[in-house]
């Protein structure tokens, strides 16, 4: 039994742990993921089947069969990401152990190292002065001197990789856990989200004080437990959070509304316009509303909104005309009334926990801190005695070059 367990463990070590702990596997995984990302940008993602049939005749079955129409949600992309994360998790654990071990007795360890470069008389003093100038601590260990600084820099790689793992973890949470709801709401009205939160729109404007296009709404959020937020202004780029709810100024276009009423029959309908429509009873006579546009007034300062409209009478299309909000058009028995354009598009995100976004943002900052630590605060560990010196530590290159330049005769090639 024990023998079998040992065999199984050896197998796991050889075929699972060792490959996952190897940087070669990590590189391979990253290269394949980069390649798949590249492929995804050659083929438009997430379109309907008809799109691929029309644009890639003869290849659409292959594209869909290989999930090339949605690479990022394909099983193989997710599996490769999972493997990369698993590999990173194991490597990160090993990095932490290594960094903790390296911190123990590093001065004694460095002092015992043999010299790799010799020092000429007087050079030890020069080296000492240089190390003091770059603020290294000097510790005597027997016959040797050990210069060291930035010891905590050895945690840089650990921080980088653990932060990447956290970014992936919280990132997946941030992408898939919130409930997202797009709602339309007119000024003065309110909408209720699926969890019972109510959003009331108090005002909406499309320009800032200087007349620049800028969509903004004043809203008030009431949570299901009755807690009410103060009035908050939301703008493109400036959402408002309250409790677990975050509300965004969402649609960046202008919405309009036209009501069609028939005084004879008493029929009345309200049409919210998000794209061009043809309002007609028989398909031959009616009003084609092309959109709501903004124009500068004659004084060049103010701007105003108008509906671009085309009247169709018995199939004959009249020239385009501008209709001001509040105006009416009569056509046969029908009266078309053009309402004030409004801007109703809000997006509400209900987060699983109020701090879920902050967790992700902290992980991203940790990643930057890890990179800074790893690249700019690399540990320095130099042992020197009367005969020579050696540069130790996990990233000795910089110090080696620096000391060689300091102590050597100028080289012919110093000018690169």
């Amino acid at each position: 039994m024990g023998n079998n367990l040992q065999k199984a463990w050896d197998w796991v070590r050889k075929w699972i742990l060792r490959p996952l702990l190897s940087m070669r596997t990590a590189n391979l995984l990253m290269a394949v993921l980069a390649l798949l990302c590249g492929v995804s940008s050659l083929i438009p993602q997430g379109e309907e089947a008809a799109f691929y049939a029309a644009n890639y005749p003869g290849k659409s079955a292959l594209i869909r069969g290989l999930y090339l129409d949605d690479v990022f949600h394909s099983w193989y992309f997710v599996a490769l990401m999972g493997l990369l994360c698993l590999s990173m998790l194991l490597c990160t654990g090993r990095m932490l152990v290594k960094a903790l071990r390296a911190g123990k007795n590093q001065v004694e360890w460095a002092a015992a190292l043999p010299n790799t470069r010799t020092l000429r008389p007087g050079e030890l003093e020069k080296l000492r002065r240089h190390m003091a100038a770059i603020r290294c601590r000097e510790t005597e260990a027997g016959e040797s001197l050990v210069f060291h600084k930035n010891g905590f820099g050895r945690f840089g790689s650990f921080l980088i990789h653990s932060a990447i793992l956290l970014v992936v973890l919280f990132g997946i949470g941030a992408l898939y856990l919130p409930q997202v709801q797009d709602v339309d709401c007119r000024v003065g009205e309110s909408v209720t989200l699926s969890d019972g939160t109510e959003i009331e729109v108090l005002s909406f404007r499309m320009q800032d004080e200087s007349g620049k296009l800028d969509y903004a709404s004043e809203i008030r959020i009431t949570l299901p437990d009755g807690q009410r937020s103060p009035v908050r202004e939301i703008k493109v780029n400036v959402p408002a959070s309250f409790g677990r709810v975050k509300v965004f100024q969402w649609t960046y276009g202008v919405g309009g509304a036209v009501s069609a009423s028939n005084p004879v029959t008493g029929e009345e309908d309200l049409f919210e316009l998000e794209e061009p429509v043809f309002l007609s009873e028989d398909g031959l006579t009616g009003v084609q509303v092309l959109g709501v546009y903004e124009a500068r007034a004659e004084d060049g300062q103010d701007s105003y909104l108008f509906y671009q409209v085309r009247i169709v009478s018995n199939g004959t299309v009249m020239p385009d005309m501008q209709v001001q909000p509040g105006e009416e058009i009569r056509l046969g028995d029908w009266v078309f009334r053009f309402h004030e354009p409004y801007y109703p598009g809000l997006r509400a995100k209900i987060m699983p926990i109020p701090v879920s976004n902050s967790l992700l943002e902290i992980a991203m900052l940790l990643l930057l801190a890890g990179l800074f630590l790893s690249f700019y605060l690399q540990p320095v560990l130099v042992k020197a005695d009367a005969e020579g010196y050696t540069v130790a530590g996990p990233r000795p290159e910089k110090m080696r070059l620096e000391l060689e330049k300091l102590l050597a005769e100028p080289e012919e090639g110093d000018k690169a």
Partner: protein
Amino acid sequence: MTILFFVSLGLYALAFPVLLLSALLRRQPLKKAGWALFVLGLLCHLGYFVWRGFAAGRMPLSSQFEFACGLALGLALMLAVARTRVNGDWIAVAGAGATALVMGYAALQPMEINELMPALRSFWFSFHIGAAVFSYSSFLVAGCYALRYVVLHRRGEAPDSRRMRQLEYSSYRLVALGFLLLTAVIVIGAIWAEAAWSAYWTWDPKEVWALITWLIYAVYFHIRLRGQKSGYWLCWYVILAIPAFLFTFAGVNKLIPGLHAYA
């Protein structure tokens, strides 16, 4: 004031052959003249950039023209700083050539000053794009160092000479700076995207290509850390990675539609 842009383009374009000649003939006066032209170009460029910023009432980094102009400025500034550190004549030649090329690309783009659309009017705008400018500049200057290494290697210089190790190390340090800044670009972009589009990541082509570039350089760090590849190999890697971020910068906007199409 647009004339300032063309003057600086002209000065960079002139500096390149003068610096090239100075490096070939090893003539100090020519080198000084080349640098003087380059620095003059940089000053005009800086003047134009500042003027455009005031005229637009914002950081002038929003259209392809502005971004390319900013990238060339970042490149020229980095080169000027790199020169004070490693006095590399050939690096100046490659850098001046690259600066003139990027400026030439900018000159081919529409130059009018546009009002920023609401989604771009954000606190994060300058940081996001400013970091991208300096990230790509670092990668380009790293490429210049790597190119110098490759040329020297082909001429038979020993890879363990101090000059060669310094060149390779400088190229690595610049890639590291570029990588740190690229990570900042992605992080700031994600935070901004959440505020503007409600999602940190939407697999938009520009995001995807930034990720590809990021992964390509992450692989570079690991290969370098394993220590099994020569400096020559690593320098080729840095040179061959250049098209990846150039595509992220310009190719994506021109060839692939997406949310960043206006940039």
